[in-house]
């Protein structure tokens, strides 16, 4: 029993960046229909923007969260405007858009390394308090992250399922031609979605960075599991990605508790391939 509680607790705590990243990723997949590996770099950039505000400008960690996330959102919009939209307009097919996104992620990642170097960076953390809950310890930071993540998740969920903007997004994803005929300007909606998704990646990066450390490969290391979680969660559903991210976190934690963490990844990856195979030709 305590094993299950431990797994859930650890899983949920560790999964918070993953939940954010998966939701943002899903949003783009939902709207544009291709897997964007460049999204992983949003995670890295979020962490570096935070480290810039936090370490170079001396801003407090908590204050740096929102501007860093917004800066990441802006980067995401730029990639949409200058890379993906021209490519889609030129008729590049989904499989090649993915390869394009891998190319973009190389450019962003190694461009970053060329600018700031490849060394690990540690964010200047606020003072930390430890809690014990049901026999497991957690830091105040983890709790705050968790609360922020769920606030963001809740707001995103609300935005997508209960507002006019969300309706537009879902309409555009569901039937682009009819959406245009109904008076939706696809360009404006897309820009907003890429901004929100980028901000989610940025937030994910900020918390991943403060939990561990910031380095240029952190996004790439997280993107595969993000893609897996989103696809397993049922692509095209923000709800699904949220649930799948929590489950993946719990599953990883559970497997980690009984074996080495790397085996947890192997198990997840194998489960991922198996689920894709079971689903057959259709993606979602």
């Amino acid at each position, binding site marked *: 029993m305590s094993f299950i509680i431990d797994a859930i607790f650890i899983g949920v705590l560790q999964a918070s960046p993953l939940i954010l990243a998966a939701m943002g990723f899903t949003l783009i997949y939902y709207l544009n229909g*291709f*897997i964007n590996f460049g999204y992983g770099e949003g995670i890295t950039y979020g962490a570096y923007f935070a480290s810039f505000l936090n370490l170079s400008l001396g801003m407090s960690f908590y204050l740096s969260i929102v501007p860093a996330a917004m800066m990441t959102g802006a980067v995401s919009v730029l990639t949409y405007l200058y*890379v993906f939209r*021209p*490519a889609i307009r*030129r008729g*590049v097919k*989904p*499989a*090649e858009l*993915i*390869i*394009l996104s*891998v*190319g*973009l*992620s*190389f*450019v*962003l*990642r*190694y*461009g970053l*390394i*060329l600018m700031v170097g*490849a060394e690990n960076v540690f964010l200047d953390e606020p003072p930390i308090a430890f809690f014990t809950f049901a026999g497991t310890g957690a830091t105040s930071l983890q709790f705050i992250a968790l609360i922020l993540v769920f606030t963001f998740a809740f707001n995103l969920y609300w935005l997508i399922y209960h507002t006019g903007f969300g309706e537009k997004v879902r309409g555009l994803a569901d039937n682009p031609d009819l959406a245009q005929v109904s008076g939706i300007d696809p360009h404006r909606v897309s820009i907003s979605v890429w901004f929100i998704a980028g901000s989610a990646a940025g937030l994910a990066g900020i918390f991943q960075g403060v939990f561990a450390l910031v380095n240029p490969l952190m996004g*790439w290391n997280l993107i*595969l599991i993000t*893609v*897996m979680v989103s*696809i397993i969660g049922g692509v095209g559903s923000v709800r699904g990605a949220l649930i799948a991210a929590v489950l993946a976190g719990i599953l990883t934690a559970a497997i980690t508790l009984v074996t*080495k963490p*790397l*085996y947890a*990844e*192997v198990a997840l*990856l*194998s489960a*991922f*391939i*198996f689920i*894709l*195979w079971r*689903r*057959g*030709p*259709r*993606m979602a």
Partner: protein
Amino acid sequence: MAYLIFTLSLLLIYVGLALALHIQFGLLGIANFGVVGFWGLGMYAMGVLQVQLDMSFVDALFLVLVLSIAVSWLMGWLVLRLDPQATLCATIAFAAIVSLLVVTEKWATMGVVGLGTIRYPFRIGGGTEYLYFAFLLAVVVGLQILVLRLHRSPTGKLLQAIRDNEELCASLGKNTFQVKMFWFVIASVVMCLLGALSAPLNQFLTPNMIVPSVTFAVWIALILGGKGHSLGAVVGVFVTFGLFDILIETYAPVSPELAVVVPNMKLFLYGLLLMAVLIYRPTGLLAPTTPPEHVWAEIRSAGIAAGRGAMTLFQNGKNAIQNPNTNQPADSTAAQENDGAADGKS
């Protein structure tokens, strides 16, 4: 010089991988993003069999072959019915599994400590590396010939037809799944075997060799060279690997501070190049603008002309000592080959 021969051998390995990927993606449209998984599997299998079980190179190669057929078939069965995006994800996951297992299974792979030393299949003093290079060259030339012939053969046409429109192909009575499976397995096994062949080159294996940038390098080479052109793979590898890894990294006169930056610069430029090609010239440097067999016929006739020239020179040299009649067979082969080229054109 020893370093150059090592890099050139590695370049051949990359050409081989790109050729195998050309069969999978260029001809069949299967987006295998797990190239490094197959390659790494073959490399580590060779290493483990040689180092831990003390097998001979040939025995180990045979076992790698068996293992790679099994793994490739399993992967084919899992991914070939999926849509391209799902195939891509599943193969990436496969590569990630391979690289994780290399770290965790320390009893076999020695984990991060590294596995060594792997022997060459033969040892002839200082010339080993050169002979091995020649051996790799023969393998890669063989592969290139296979790809060239594949483009011209009925099978190749079928593969392209499946890539273009699988459902239409099935509606004409072609068993598309079986065909895809066969060539996917062949190409994946080639990747595994190229891995096994690169083990002696590297001699000492570490998990950080099995990283996604290997897959990426092969992909960029293929896309850059032209995924639909039978020579695209070679051209692509020469432009990327040959230009950056050999010319710039090894021979460009860069200062030590800059030398640290060069590998990152390279990957940055790879990415930029890939993006530019995909957006502005999706067909790659060598675009299949004319029917492939026309191009092939041109290359062949050019090759035959060059070959004839060389042959004449060679024969002239020989004739000085030998009977002048010996140049007869050489000419008749050339004539036959010309017929072959003409067939393709008709």
